[in-house]
């Protein structure tokens, strides 16, 4: 395999085939067409068959017991087992179990040939670039599904007391929207951009555990289907927080919530430790810790949170499933359990989760700012320290969600302190951003607009977070629309703005095609204006006394609610611009992107487009951090030929070592 990198070898630089041939296991040549193998279709068949088997088994086991739900008339054991077996069937259908099962029975597993063509996106691929694209499409589908539910909520809230939905439908929609958005956002950047870009940015040919990486995606996709089943099963009335004992008394949709979070949680853990190990162990020679791109720092902090916090969620969900099916009493006060246990476990996961959703956004904007200001990143170490500081502190703040709950009330000052402390490392991110803008040459391209929009929104979200951390103010705003506006400003205004900036920024690399910039600007401005139009009035609504998740509110709040609803519909419409842009420039009228449209120094832009299967012909030797913009003597970021530079970088690794990503 030869790769034309379009780069002329410098004088004295060795040229040739060194390191191009790779040793690998003998592969069985495949001659059958791609659609005959295992792909999305067989996964769906496996999921349906698995659900049927599990449901039948559950009815065999537990049909004689009175079910805990009662209202739906469903046997919760059958639903839970159906969903669990469905996920197993899904994984078997896609082929995730082939390798471990072959190992289990002592056979040498067959590693399939790297696939080409569009069918590989529907298969169990261990190529981090394919997994990244799979994640990206699924995240967008997830986001738009949950976004439609958000517009349904705003439709119901158009009037104080006239109803578009019954209260049961409304509460199901609210819970479904929140849960789907949280599930989506926890992998929104780590999945697509983390998997796709981190190996390219650190000069690696693959991630550490490609099969784990593939499994993380297929768990994520299974989670989408599982949480969708909540709607036909009657929804769940608890919102995304799932508080017991309401959880224990709820109908069948609650099982989808618990199993769904469990499945998503497993995917998050897998994605997290794969990424963490990749960043720690798979950096190219010369990629020292103070040359690692700041996006990779954010991915490392996020990966640590994913790996350490998510197991709590999975365990808590398992307890909930057992309470509902096997009649255990983890969360049942009357039988020796405690409803506080769920609150504590859930938020012990839930607050790090909030930063799982914030840190990647910081990483994206900090990565883009130097490119669009033509200046080095201001305070690189401060940025890295800020991200790690936020990640560390996020484990010590969870009870600020429980200030009014009666759980260890004498600890409130401590949690007030830790919560307010977290604004210090968050402030680092602002220092880095503002410092980079100073005396810069700001190119207002579409990704830069999203980055600046993120700073605008996150400032409001962050400052209102300080209000929430103050216990006397919290007495008024806790559980109101104020909280809801606050976290939409941080997650939607922060993470989602950064994600769309990242999509505009990196799609030329990921797809080889350029999104239309004029329509991109229109998308940004409509999204920015209507986002603020939707969520800013909700601060006022919350302060004026409207609790979250209600379908009736005081009549004097209708004006503010209607402004918000109008904004929400227009915000939804702004995403049509994005979808239209994608369809037009990617499918109908594709335009080949320039190799490096933003003139970035990043290592990911030094690879050919489309990125070859092994990313780099040779493992590059990194010479500098990628932020040498405006330097009087610009230094190359990396030596892709990996020749003489080895000596300069003082690296010891053999650059010709190509690890087979499978």
């Amino acid at each position, binding site marked *: 395999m030869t790769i034309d990198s379009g780069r002329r070898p410098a004088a004295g630089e060795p040229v040739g085939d060194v390191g191009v041939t790779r040793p690998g296991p003998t592969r069985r040549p495949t001659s059958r067409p791609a659609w005959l193998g295992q792909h999305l279709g067989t996964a769906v068949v496996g999921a349906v068959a698995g659900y049927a088997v599990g449901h039948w088994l559950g009815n065999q086991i537990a049909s004689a017991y009175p079910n805990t739900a009662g209202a739906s008339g469903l046997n919760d054991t059958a639903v839970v087992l159906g969903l669990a077996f469905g996920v197993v069937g899904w994984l078997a259908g896609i082929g995730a179990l082939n390798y471990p099962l072959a190992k289990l029975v002592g056979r040498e597993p067959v590693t399939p040939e790297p696939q080409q063509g569009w069918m590989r996106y529907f298969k169990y691929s261990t190529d981090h670039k394919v997994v990244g694209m799979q994640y990206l499409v699924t995240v967008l589908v997830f986001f738009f599904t949950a976004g439609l539910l958000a517009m349904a909520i705003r439709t119901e809230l158009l009037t104080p007391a006239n109803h578009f939905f019954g209260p049961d439908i409304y509460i199901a929609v609210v819970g479904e929207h929140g849960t789907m958005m949280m599930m989506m956002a926890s992998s929104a950047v780590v999945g697509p951009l983390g998997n796709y870009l981190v190996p390219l940015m650190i000069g690696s040919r693959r991630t550490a555990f490609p099969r784990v990486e593939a499994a993380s995606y297929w768990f994520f996709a299974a989670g989408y289907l599982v949480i969708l089943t909540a709607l036909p099963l009657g929804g769940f009335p608890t919102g995304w927080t799932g*508080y017991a004992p309401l959880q224990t008394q709820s109908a069948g949709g609650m099982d989808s919530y618990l199993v769904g979070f469990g499945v998503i949680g497993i995917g998050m853990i897998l994605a997290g430790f794969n990424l963490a190990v990749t960043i720690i162990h798979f950096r190219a020679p010369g990629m020292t810790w103070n040359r690692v791109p700041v996006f990779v720092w954010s991915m490392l902090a996020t990966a640590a949170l994913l790996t350490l916090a998510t197991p709590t969620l999975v365990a808590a969900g398992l307890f909930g499933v057992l309470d509902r099916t096997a009649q255990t009493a983890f969360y049942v006060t009357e039988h*020796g359990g405690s409803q506080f246990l769920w609150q504590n476990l859930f938020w012990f996961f839930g607050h790090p989760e909030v930063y799982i959703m914030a840190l990647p956004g910081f990483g994206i904007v900090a990565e883009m700012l130097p490119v669009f200001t033509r200046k080095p990143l201001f305070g690189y170490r401060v940025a890295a320290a800020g991200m790690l500081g936020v990640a560390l502190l996020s484990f010590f703040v969870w009870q600020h969600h429980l200030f009014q709950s009666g759980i260890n009330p004498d600890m409130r000052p401590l949690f007030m302190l830790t919560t307010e402390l977290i604004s210090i490392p968050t402030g680092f991110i602002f220092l880095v951003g503002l410092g980079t*803008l100073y005396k810069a040459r700001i190119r207002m391209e579409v990704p830069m607009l999203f980055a*600046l929009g993120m700073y605008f929104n996150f400032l409001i979200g962050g400052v209102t977070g300080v209000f929430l951390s*103050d216990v006397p103010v919290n007495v008024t705003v806790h559980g109101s629309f104020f909280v809801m506006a606050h976290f939409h400003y941080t997650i939607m205004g922060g993470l989602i703005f950064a994600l769309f900036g990242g999509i505009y920024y990196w799609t030329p690399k990921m797809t080889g095609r350029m999104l239309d910039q004029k329509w991109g600007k229109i998308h940004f401005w409509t999204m920015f204006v209507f986002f603020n139009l939707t969520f800013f009035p909700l601060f006022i609504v919350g302060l004026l006394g409207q609790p979250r998740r209600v379908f009736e509110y005081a009549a004097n709040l209708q004006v503010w609610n209607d402004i918000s609803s109008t904004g929400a519909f227009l915000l939804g419409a702004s995403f049509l611009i994005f979808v239209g842009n994608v369809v037009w420039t990617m499918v109908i009228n594709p335009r080949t992107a320039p190799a490096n449209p933003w003139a970035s120094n990043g290592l990911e832009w030094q690879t050919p487009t489309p990125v070859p299967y092994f990313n780099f012909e040779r493992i590059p030797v990194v010479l500098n951090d990628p932020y040498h913009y405006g330097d009087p003597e610009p230094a190359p970021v990396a030596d892709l030929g990996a020749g003489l530079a080895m000596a300069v970088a003082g690296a010891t690794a053999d650059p010709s070592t190509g690890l087979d990503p499978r």
Partner: protein
Amino acid sequence: MPDAPAPRHFRRMVAVWFVLSAVTDPLFYFLAGPHIPPGKMTSSANGAQFDFNVLFIIALPVVIAVWVYLGYAIWTWRASRGGPEPVAGPYSRGHLGLQTGWISVSTVIVLGLFVFGTYELVVPAGAGGGEGPNPIWSPASKQILPVQVIAQQWMFTYRYPTYGGFETRNLVLPADTNVAFHVTSLDVIHDFWAYQLGVKADANPGQDDVAYTSTGSQLGRFMVRCDELCGIWHGAMYNTGHIESAAAFQSWATTQEQTLAATTKLLPPFAWTYTPDANGADGGFYPDNRDPYNKVEMYGAQKVTS
């Protein structure tokens, strides 16, 4: 063209920031401040309003600083305005003094907010928030009216232990009185949010969650809403309470006590919680064996002898 003296960017920004902050902060405090929810009906509402205003006055200059900087930077240094490529001088990768200053200032603000918030929480006896069954911050006064709030799907009822423990759906409070809300639930987690009173406490099954406030001279209605998602009719779980003069309250409460006496006898005896627990699965109403009519705990409440 001779070189113009380098514009003093920081000085300009600080000037704009200072003027804007100096104008908007007092404007906010004097125009909006007195109307900030939840108002001034009780001590805890007053405290919440005061805290909100203080935080807003601190937050506004911070937000303005970032906005002024962003606006100035975009206006002055955008590429379409021409100008040379920026040169990566020694300060472009970081500036020790600036970074230290930023971190110091934010740390000082944060620690100040922590001290302020703790003072405002501890001194007004929990600031109207739920403090669990054994509050460590309570009012010094012993003249406290206990009101029990019982939440269930999907309504609130109230019991007045000092008036024989009658149960009603009307929440009436006397003016100029210390009130202790004892919030509990019969089924799932609810939250008692008396909006204008600045009181919020989760209603947990099997737990007595205490929140204190102190009514002032202001009479009138206030809104009570459930603030923790409790099932499909959560949005319809609200009612209205009243603050009346002490004399009006006294006559209302004694009348209620007499009118409802027959009903009160049929109710479960007054207790801190009403759900059976691990020690009383047959429906014991005193799961923790605490006497609800203990004079110390209930500020002199008298048990009715029937």
